[in-house]
């Protein structure tokens, strides 16, 4: 009876507790599929959260007078975050103190010093009077020539009488370690460089080179600056690759053109079944433009590409992420079963079906790269070998960690910042214990602390038993410790054939050395056995022949 009562008490407690645990999970706010990974069979596997939202920056939280309007890009230099507030033609500079972000200043104008005035005017494509002098307005401001093909009388105003110039649809910003700010000022057809006091330094404008189509406007959309001050510009309507400028502003050609992709069927259709008139109506096979670029600390440019169809993913023709070297080749390492393409599967009936489209990419200091997918609002992380670390995020509204139109990603240390163009917010993600362990393990490995790395990977496995990288990490350390059998088992678990093969070679060598006696013995026995069998047969045959002869006689 007493036992019974105790049991009942336990049951009662459990029934009270059970809903509480559920409530706790809900309060947590993260669904179990917020973060996931793909296994070897491209099956989606739930994973612990690698990143969680620590902060969301809105216009209101920065106490901005004018709210952000369709911001297009982020840039991080040390503790400073720059938000390109494209809709308001300005750039917001924020700084991080502890975990908070505070507004430092609003960059919306550049002063052109008297010594730089002539250079600025000469580099800008200003409107001129018939006698060759610059055309000014009544208030003394200067105007650009109207855009190509437009019927307007004047282009945008670029210089006021106070020698101040404003942005016109700025799309990207880059800041070098000295604080020099580069702005891709798209509709002013220029990349403008200013020093940290917002004084004009330099202008990169439309190249006068013959390789650049002079009938086309120069519309710089994205830009990166390398350590020696070279500027790579991703410009709209240019499909020859990135426009490359030397530090002094000279144009030195294009780099990394997106190779032309078309399929055989299109080709046959176009060449043999279309009339000349039809063909001339259609666009030729042209390489597509990149979506966004990022330069890593070694000076390689990561470019993302979003103009491809699902079909192109099949044989990795799409190459949504590329790493471009100095001669323009894609050198991204792809050592996983699937190349880094984002989602491997999606629900075909859902509103957000289709391949992942990476709108931006950022490369961490440990060479891991994170790309933001606009299709489903997800961040995809890959390690330097191209193996998927995790994916997290989703589309939605009014919740932390969901995006409506995510279009830019940056990192500050290992924290990630994601910009939402529609929501006008920056979501700050910080790695969880799980995420940090993964970073720590790979860092330890790179440092040469193999045993430490294996220990960290063990901890990762305790949090996520489906994590292939952990199996490989531990396997490597086992292989170093010459425990080949264990290493093989681990590599097999992760389907890592390359490493398995390596461990197997050692294992086989040791096995053969150990069992060479047996091998020789078995071979010897087989030889003897076959010899004996042959002899017996021969004898049998002879006996039969003898008996046969006897019968015949």
């Amino acid at each position, binding site marked *: 009876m007493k036992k019974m009562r105790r049991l009942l008490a336990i049951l009662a407690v459990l029934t009270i507790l059970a809903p509480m645990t559920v409530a706790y999970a809900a309060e947590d706010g993260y669904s179990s599929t917020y973060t996931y990974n793909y296994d070897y069979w491209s099956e989606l596997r739930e994973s612990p959260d690698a990143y969680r939202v620590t902060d969301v920056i809105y216009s209101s939280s920065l106490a901005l007078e004018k709210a952000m309007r369709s911001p297009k890009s982020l840039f991080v230099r040390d503790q400073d975050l720059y938000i390109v507030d494209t809709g308001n033609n300005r750039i917001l500079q924020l700084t991080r103190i502890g975990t908070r972000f505070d507004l430092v200043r609003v960059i919306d104008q550049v002063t052109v010093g008297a010594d730089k005035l002539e250079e600025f005017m000469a580099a800008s494509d200003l409107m001129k009077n018939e006698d060759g002098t610059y055309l000014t307005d009544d208030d003394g401001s200067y105007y650009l020539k109207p855009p190509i093909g437009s019927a307007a009388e004047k282009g945008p105003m670029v210089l006021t009488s106070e020698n101040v110039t404003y942005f016109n649809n700025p799309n990207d910003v880059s800041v070098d370690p000295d604080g020099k700010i580069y702005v891709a000022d798209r509709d002013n057809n220029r990349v403008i460089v200013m020093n940290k006091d917002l004084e004009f330094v330099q202008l990169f404008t439309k190249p006068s080179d013959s390789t650049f189509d002079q009938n086309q406007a120069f519309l710089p959309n994205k830009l990166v600056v390398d350590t020696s001050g070279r500027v790579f510009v991703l410009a709209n309507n240019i499909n020859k690759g990135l426009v490359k400028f030397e530090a002094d502003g000279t144009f030195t050609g294009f780099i990394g053109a997106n190779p032309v992709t078309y399929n055989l069927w299109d080709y046959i259709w176009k060449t043999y079944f279309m009339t000349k008139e039809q063909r001339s109506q259609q666009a030729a096979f042209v390489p597509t433009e990149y979506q966004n670029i990022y330069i890593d600390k070694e000076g390689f440019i990561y470019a993302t590409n979003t103009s491809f169809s699902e079909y192109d993913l099949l044989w990795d023709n799409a190459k949504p992420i590329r790493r471009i070297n100095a001669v323009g080749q894609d050198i991204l390492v792809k050592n996983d079963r699937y190349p880094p393409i984002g989602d491997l599967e999606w629900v075909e009936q859902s509103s957000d079906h289709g391949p992942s489209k990476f709108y931006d990419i950022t490369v961490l200091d440990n060479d891991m790269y994170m790309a933001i997918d606009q299709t489903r609002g997800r961040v995809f992380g890959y390690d330097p070998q191209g193996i998927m670390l995790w994916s997290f995020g989703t589309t939605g509204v009014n919740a932390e960690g969901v995006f409506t139109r995510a279009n830019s990603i940056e990192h500050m240390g290992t924290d990630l910042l994601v910009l939402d163009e529609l929501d006008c917010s920056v979501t700050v993600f910080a790695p969880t214990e799980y995420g940090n362990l993964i970073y720590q393990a790979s860092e330890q490995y790179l440092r040469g602390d193999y045993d430490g790395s294996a220990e960290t990977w063990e901890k990762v496995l305790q949090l996520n038993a489906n994590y292939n990288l952990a199996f490989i990490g531990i396997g490597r350390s086992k292989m170093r410790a010459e425990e080949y059998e264990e290493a093989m088992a681990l590599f097999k678990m992760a389907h890592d*054939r*390359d490493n398995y093969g390596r461990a197997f070679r050692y294992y086989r060598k040791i096995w053969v050395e150990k069992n060479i006696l047996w091998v020789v013995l078995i071979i010897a026995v087989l030889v003897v056995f076959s010899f004996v069998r042959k002899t017996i047969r021969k004898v049998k045959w002879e006996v*039969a022949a003898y008996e046969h002869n006897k019968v015949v006689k």
Partner: protein
Amino acid sequence: MSITKSLNDAVARREHPRLRRYKETLLYAKYVIFHPFDGFWDLVHEKRGSLAAAHTFVLLFLLTYVLKLMYTSFQFITTAIQYINIYERWASLLLPFLVLCLANWSLSTLFDGKGRFKDIYMAMSYALVPYIIIQLPLILISNVLAFDEGAFYTVLMSISELWCLFLAFVGLMEVHDFGPGKTLVSIVATVFGAMVILFLLLVFFSLLSDAFGYFTSMYREIVFRLS
């Protein structure tokens, strides 16, 4: 009666004649795969092969296939064994095999082929032998190879497959007494024929299910009216 034959008979005296014939036809495969032109001719025209042996080869082929999926080292094969339905896989091998044999037989009249269905089936089954004799040991070999030695595996695998294809080609040639050109044409026609057969099967089954549906609904209607 030559002395060798009578001696062979004397040695194998105690065996049942049918078992002996089965054994002989089975072992005849060795001759067929190394001397396909002679071998296939004699296989059907000199009755050196048997249906029992042919069935055995088909069964062994299916068995080899399953063993290969199960026991080949994971370094050389990407099969999600957990998702595989063996019967489905077998059906996907057997059905095309039989349909192609059927189509070839159906078209043999058109092409003046000499082979009967039994002959075609037999020749095709004997053509599977290299697959069995190479792939079975290859399963073992794959387990003592490292990943970067995979070339051995792929080469042997390709050999087994190409050999089978070659044998099938020669087999058809000899069974029907065709020249190589005519065989090629008949193979292309066979593929189309197989498609037609599949189409007819599809139509037949869909019509059958329609008819079945019609009669069941009629029965239900009658029962409903009567009650």
